[in-house]
């Protein structure tokens, strides 16, 4: 097992990883920017090291600074958290070259699955169901060829950046006449955001559910899944509420999708904790969309129903241990729900609304977990994402879990000058009849925003 792990992240996830390290008796070093020097993760760390200014490019995205920090503090492994360098194959290679274990899959797996276009090519090769689209060559640049793929798939289609993430550089096209300008615009956006103009086309499913499978794979060929999460409640194509198991999805279907993800993990040579994402259309069709080579923001709900600490499993797998359980040993129980509490204004297009947190009273009570780095006096800045806290609750049934979440969000007080949160909006979603009856799709938030409540 590792002696020292360097946590190359910030916010709630730095604290989350640190806590498991502490429980396992592993020394934790937190690498941080100047903006985060006075945060709970830094204060609780066994050691901290300042790696750069607030701009992520020069701190949390600065591979040289992070590797230097790891070497300097005697770390034998790096936990990248989510976002930042967590899915960067070059960073994984640099760590390897310096004798550091990056907690995640091997660089070649990240390279293959992290790039959306090559992940699609992988899925086709592995005979996983994918949505119609193309072009099959991710390096193709010919707009006419892309247009042909779109015409064949049938509109609406979505043009996605191969290097994309977080719902950025994605354009939905409903009219064939709008395809070519949208194609050029998405390539420009992809170049500006990711330094990589490659895009591909997929059929866009309007009334879709977004579901994903949590898998654990060790370095000895063992793979299990920890059930399926429903992440259909999204705004700006970013997840807001996640639930496991997906409501109104038969156990048989969950098992089938889980087995599909296990097959995908095996085929890709996956090692570590990972997520395989699928869309579920109105007719129950399941299509692979992408894989995430890291811990997910929404991992706590899988932990709550399975009793498995995913960060602990990540560390054990990275240290070369075999999985301690077979598929039949993973028995999810009950229902878990997570809400992401963000500093954003739902009535201004969910734009980040950073500010100073003056009052902060998180919820508590039975089966209520709050993952947060926030404390009174914390400034939520525009340098980083606007996540303030994740509230996750568990209950034996969906009805109880919805009541518990509404109670928890009702207890939550966050306020301060300039600060705006989505707390009341989250409660509106929970109360929405489509959500209550589990008839919601990824378009629910947009529908709510365009239909004022009278």
């Amino acid at each position: 097992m590792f002696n020292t792990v360097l946590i190359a992240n910030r916010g709630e996830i730095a604290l989350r990883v640190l806590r498991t390290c502490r429980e396992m008796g592993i020394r934790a070093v937190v690498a941080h920017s100047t903006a985060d020097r006075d945060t709970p993760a830094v204060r609780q760390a066994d050691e901290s090291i300042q790696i750069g200014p607030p701009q992520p490019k020069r701190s949390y995205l600065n591979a040289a600074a992070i590797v230097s920090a790891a070497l300097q503090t005697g770390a034998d492994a790096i936990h990248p958290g989510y976002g930042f360098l967590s899915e960067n194959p070059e960073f994984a290679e640099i760590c390897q070259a310096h004798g550091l274990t990056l907690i995640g899959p091997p660089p070649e797996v990240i390279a293959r699955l992290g790039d959306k276009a090559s992940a699609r090519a992988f899925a086709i090769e592995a005979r996983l169901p994918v949505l119609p689209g193309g072009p099959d060559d991710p390096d193709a640049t010919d707009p006419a060829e892309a247009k042909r793929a779109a015409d064949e798939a049938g509109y609406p289609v979505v043009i996605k950046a191969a290097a994309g993430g977080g719902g950025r550089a994605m354009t939905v096209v409903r009219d064939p006449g709008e395809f070519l300008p949208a194609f050029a615009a998405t390539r420009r956006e992809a170049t500006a955001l990711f330094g990589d103009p490659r895009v591909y086309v997929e059929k866009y499913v309007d009334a879709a559910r977004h579901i994903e499978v949590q898998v654990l794979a060790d370095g000895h060929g063992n793979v299990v899944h920890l059930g399926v999460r429903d992440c259909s409640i999204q705004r700006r194509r970013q997840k807001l509420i996640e639930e496991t198991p997906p409501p109104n999805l038969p156990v048989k279907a969950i098992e089938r999708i889980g087995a599909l993800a296990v097959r995908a993990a095996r085929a890709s040579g996956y090692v570590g904790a990972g997520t395989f994402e699928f869309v579920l259309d109105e007719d129950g069709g399941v299509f692979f969309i992408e894989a995430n080579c890291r811990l997910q923001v929404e991992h706590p709900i899988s932990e709550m129903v399975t009793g498995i600490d995913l960060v602990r499993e990540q560390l054990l797998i990275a240290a070369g241990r075999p999985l301690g359980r077979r598929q039949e040993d993973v028995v999810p129980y009950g229902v878990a729900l997570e809400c992401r509490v963000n500093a954003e204004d739902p009535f201004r297009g969910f734009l980040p609304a950073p500010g100073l947190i003056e009052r902060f009273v998180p919820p508590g009570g039975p089966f209520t977990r709050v993952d947060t780095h926030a404390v009174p006096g914390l400034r939520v800045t525009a340098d980083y994402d606007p996540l303030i806290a994740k509230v996750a609750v568990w209950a034996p049934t969906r009805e109880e879990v919805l009541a518990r979440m509404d109670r928890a969000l009702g207890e939550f007080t966050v306020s301060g000058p300039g600060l705006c949160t989505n707390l009341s909006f989250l409660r509106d979603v929970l109360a929405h009849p489509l959500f209550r009856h589990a008839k919601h799709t990824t378009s629910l938030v947009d529908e709510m925003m365009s239909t004022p409540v009278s």
Partner: protein
Amino acid sequence: MNVEEVPEPGAARRSRPEDLLAWVAGYAVELGRVGSGPLRRVSVSCGGTTVEVEWSPRAAAAFPAVEFAANGDGNHAAEAPRPERNGGEPPGRDAADGSRIVVASPMVGTFYRAPEPGAAPYVEVGDVVEAGQQVGIVEAMKLMNPILAECAGRVAEIVADDGAPVEYEQPLIVLVPDDGR
């Protein structure tokens, strides 16, 4: 200080490493020429393709720093491109009296006072230094990064020990204005 980072073009990414390196080096030279001030530092990293060019402070005003995030991600938004914040750089001058100038480490690494073990240190307490004069080295990942005095002054204190691990912005040397006495 002025930093410019360039995202790699998709085409270059898939070419042979030596082509990429030649392209990057060429770009670095080109960038170096556009600054009106003397070139201070060029850093080229091939994996992930970054070119950083720094000009001396006097040129900084003419070229506001621009940063392109080449690596976007879902959960932590690095909105790009966007201007660098003023607050991102070491404060330099001590707020208390404005007379002490702190030379701080620009990166995580190891501080060295001399060009090699056993050699005379770049500076000693009491020395007068010119703007741009080298006062030490911070080694990071086997790269020797010269530490330069950003303005002229007299060395008042050497804060970091020779061979000490240093963090970003950790004070290394303190200068005071040289009043000629």
